[in-house]
């Protein structure tokens, strides 16, 4: 199968049924994408396909048609710095997924309200409970 990830085309050999998350991590070494629940609940594995946040742990790699953006593709996004400034990270395991969801949000709404942030970020669980800091980071992402 062919996958376009962060602008680069990859030829990947994996059995049908393999998740996009597993292919990213195990075949392509893109370990920024995290797998936590591995059943579509927690959002740690969030990536974008054609700019839309999806859960890579329950996405079949062979069904991917669009361009995938992972956290590695958002290395230079101002949100990364905003998360650091707001101290929106504790253990950090959910952070890549949080940043991917937040990047899609600010692309659609550059100045989101608190309610819009809470609605758009509801699928990214943070077990450390850094939600107020994440909200702050997104509110001030361009500062």
């Amino acid at each position, binding site marked *: 199968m062919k996958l376009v990830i962060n602008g680069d085309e990859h030829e990947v050999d994996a059995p049908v049924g393999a998740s996009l998350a597993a292919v990213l991590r195990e075949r392509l070494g893109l370990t920024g994408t995290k797998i936590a629940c591995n059943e*579509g609940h927690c959002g740690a594995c969030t990536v974008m396909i054609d700019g839309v946040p999806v859960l890579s742990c329950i996405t079949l790699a*062979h069904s991917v048609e669009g361009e995938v953006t992972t956290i590695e593709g958002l290395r230079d996004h101002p949100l990364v710095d905003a998360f650091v400034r707001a101290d929106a990270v504790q253990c950090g395991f959910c952070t890549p997924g949080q940043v991917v969801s937040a990047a899609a949000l600010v692309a659609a709404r550059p100045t989101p309200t608190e309610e819009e942030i809470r609605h758009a970020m509801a699928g990214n669980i943070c077990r450390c409970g850094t939600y107020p800091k994440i909200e702050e980071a997104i509110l001030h992402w361009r500062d």
Partner: protein
Amino acid sequence: MELLRPSSVDELDGGLFIHGGTEVVPLLRDGIVRAETLVDVRGVVPRGVTGGRIGAGTTLAELEADARVPDALREACRLAASPQLRNMSSLGGNLLQSTRCWYWRLKFPCRLHDGERCHAADGEHREHAIFGNDYCASAHPSDVAAALLALDGRVRTTRREIALAELYRLPDEADRRMTTLEPGELILEVEVQPPAASTYLKAMDRKRWSFPQVGVAAARTGGGTRIALAGVAPVPWLLDGPEDVERATPLPRTAWKVDVARALVRRALAELG
């Protein structure tokens, strides 16, 4: 396992249909469903809204943001699942999702797994059914199905057109299935006539990203008001009227849902005015 990607209805020939995958992939992984052939139907199922017709391949995220969609359906989509799941999941797939009953998901030999008893009825059933629960106490999780039931939606499949209510059936000893779809039958479109007013209210364990404890959809048309509930029966549940809540048959630890349903029905009707 192989993955086929047909581009027309004519090419469909068996296999397990998959669209967004949010339900099928976890069920495959858990061994609850099995398949040699997966059939990605995204190239077959219409997507988008045209008048009152909604392609079954339209995602919940698209419906949530579409002002042409009746309020009850739009709100049901907005309150369903998480943003990522709404981006992935199709309308048709949402209607066909399986119960969240933990006994079923954990593969207890319950009646839906062709076993001999309902483990929830005698066990942990706080989130289970208050209607139609004497054979299987599972609760149908689809907010969207309740909204479409209140809106008296119709479903067009590859073989026929039926009222949404006819898509579902309560399981019994002779037939454990929860839908009336035949093997190989695929939902293509849903048709909804615009109501005079409609709404969807949902009680959840937390404010977002949760299955319904009780969801109440109400829609007023020239012909009267229809009320349908999510999370209260093995299938989406149509009430004969607000007083029908009193005919609930709760399990020992689901009686609280009757109170929630009563309150949400009252509020929904008040909203419709």
